[in-house]
């Protein structure tokens, strides 16, 4: 496969996944803002979380100052000037798809193209209710895209690069949500199992569609340690780090190729750490440190993948 095609497929998938994750993060912030804030939370405190998760707090502050519900929502959902906004992600996903139209199915293209056309038809001003609908819609489009992809595309390495993009992005996002939320929620754990915990950790679980899974698996009150275990180590939880790295490793094995040796080694190492790791050890080290390491390794893996497959600096003589 052409390196540039692989690159476009990879980024197309990453941007769709990123749009979905941002919608999830914002959706939870909106839900949470409806709850009585009995922890030392203020509105500003609450609305920094989505900015921190997506790493765009700095650029937001330059433009708007303090975090406010309406400004953060607009900035992260629809602002074309924010390269990480849902709007920008959908634009970039479409641009990547457009460049590799021959490598994706016409059904996939139609979903991406329709999504882009529709997001441009949205009213400029949206209220709270409208935004909730919008987040649902973004999630739906992402689900639709994934379904159409698996249902129509040929199972070759093109699909492997799409999976690579999807699951690296998802792993990155789950780790960030957990990290940032953990930071914010930690002050309230004096009262484990209390109502605040139920709502706060419950909303975190909901943001990654893991609330029902949690109830099913643990059948117990929500505790930070179990939430972390679920989202890091459980391989049966589709948005957990372990499940994502399962997919990343499998995709890299399918892609193969001599230049990918280091990428496969890194992915294998990271996967093994999740496969054999224990939540007690992660907590022992400190969850924040654990997740920071994970994010660092994921970024390293991403760089190595670009180097091995996506770059266009081949040297004939070394081959």
């Amino acid at each position, binding site marked *: *496969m*052409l*390196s*540039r*095609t*692989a690159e476009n497929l990879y980024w197309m998938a990453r941007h769709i996944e990123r749009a979905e994750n941002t919608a999830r993060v914002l959706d939870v912030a909106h839900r949470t803002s409806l709850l009585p804030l009995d922890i030392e939370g203020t509105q500003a405190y609450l609305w920094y979380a989505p900015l921190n998760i997506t790493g765009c707090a700095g650029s937001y502050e330059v433009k708007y100052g303090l975090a406010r519900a309406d400004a953060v929502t607009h900035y992260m959902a629809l602002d074309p000037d924010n390269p990480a906004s849902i709007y920008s992600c959908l634009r970039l996903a479409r*641009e990547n798809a*457009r*460049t*590799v*139209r*021959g*490598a994706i199915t*016409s059904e996939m*293209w*139609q979903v991406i*193209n*329709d999504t882009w*056309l529709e997001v441009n038809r949205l009213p400029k001003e949206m209220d709270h209710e409208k935004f909730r609908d919008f987040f649902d819609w973004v999630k739906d489009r992402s689900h639709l895209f994934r379904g159409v992809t698996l249902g129509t595309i040929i199972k070759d*390495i093109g699909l492997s*690069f799409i999976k690579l993009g999807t699951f690296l992005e998802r792993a990155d996002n789950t780790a960030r949500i957990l990290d940032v939320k953990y930071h914010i929620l930690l002050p309230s754990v004096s009262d484990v199992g209390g109502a605040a915990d139920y709502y706060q950790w419950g909303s975190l679980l909901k943001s990654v569609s893991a609330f029902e899974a949690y109830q099913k698996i643990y059948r117990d009150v929500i505790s930070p340690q179990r939430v972390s275990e679920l989202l890091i180590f459980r391989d049966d939880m589709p948005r957990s780090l372990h499940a994502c790295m399962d997919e990343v490793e499998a995709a890299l094995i399918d*892609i193969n*190729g*001599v*230049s990918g040796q280091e990428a496969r080694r890194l992915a294998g190492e990271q996967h093994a750490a999740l496969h054999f790791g224990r939540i007690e050890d992660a907590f022992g080290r400190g969850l924040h440190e654990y997740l920071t390491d994970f994010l660092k390794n994921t970024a390293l893996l991403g760089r190595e993948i670009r180097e091995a*497959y*996506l770059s*266009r600096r*081949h040297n*004939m003589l070394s*081959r």
Partner: protein
Amino acid sequence: MNTKSLKKYFNEMYAGNGSVREIYEPYTRWLKDLPDGTLKRRNAEAELLFRRLGITFAVYGETDDVERLIPFDIVPRIFGASEWQRLELGLKQRVRALNAFLHDIYHDQEIIKAGIISAHQVLDNGQYRPEMQGVDLPNQVYAHIAGIDLVRVAENDFYVLEDNLRTPSGVSYMLENRKTMMRLFPELFVKHTIEPVEHYPQMLLNTLREAAPPNVAYPVIVVMTPGAYNSAYFEHAYLASQMGVELVEGQDLFVHQQKVYMHTTEGPQQVHVIYRRVDDDFIDPRVFRPDSTLGVPGLMDAYCSGNVALANGVGTGVADDKSTYLFVPEMIRFYLGETPLLSNVPTWRLSEPEDLSYVLAHLPELVVKEVQGSGGYGMLVGPASTLAEIEAYKQRILAEPAKFIAQPTLALSSCPTLVESGVAPRHVDLRPFVLSGKEVRIVPGGLTRVALTEGSLVVNSSQGGGTKDTWVLED
């Protein structure tokens, strides 16, 4: 030349006496029985389909709506089998002669020696590429893909308006128009026996395979595009996917020891045939424009060494130039020993003083074009222009007469077209696509372009023209 006789337009649907021409009878009967508003409704459906599929075309110079749709008209243009056969023979003949001409001028230049065309006309032409002198191409084919623009002025009178031998576009619209028509009007395809066009990509793939360097058993073929922002990008991607080959940009290719490779996820892979939709000027910054970022350094070296084939070949522009156009009938006689089956439009060359003075005196009734222009940019349509426009154009001509040619304003045939007020006649032309490999191939029909503005004779999509599905009926 008597321009008066051309003023009466030939209507494709109606014969001179107002009765429906035989080939249009089943269609008109169907149209008459159609409930009111059906056409408009289906037209809206068609537009939605095109938009969703992303079949778009960028028009240079427009900033707001970069991805514009080429308007699609849902009334088909119909040819009878015998009508088409005559055209097909003429088109194949013309393209064979044009390829023979290109081979000749890049080798022994017999046609110059024979005094049929001047050395100046060929060698001083900006599109003549001295780099190609003496380079042998497989099957002696230079223009593998030719788009020949035809216009009709009467029942049996067709003229070739121009030959497009560089990177002719539009074939994806021919294919998508058919697909859309079959989806919107399946009943019409039951009523008529229409020659299929859907196998064009396979035909193109065969043609490209035949263009490969001779000793390559399984040539690797790619389509090369200037990129996603090119106006015809949709078509490049479309053809690549229909043929099942990679769509590459210059940055995906590199040359090593006179061979061309593409960067793949498994490392470098050699490429043997490049269907390039990038102009000569931009394909190799080492040989042509040094500022080009669209090309591949060293590509010409690999090409001239015979390790890679380019379709179309380099230097074809010298044969589709509007001043070379004049000599095509002579080429047919010279190379093939045949009588031309398709006529040229009478053309005045403004480099000739006599022609110049005639043209300057008759500008309001003529069409003047730049010799090397294309796409309907920078032309003067006398009858449709204001006095001020004509005067301004006159100054341009006087500054450099040799850059222009003039032709009578042709009475392009008209075809019923769906417009705001209902179905009304609009002028059309036809661009069939002729493929040359070991043999010359052509799918029946081509792309019909239609000038949607009442009375307008400019059909180019860059000037607001639309397209129609073109049917060739089987006997």
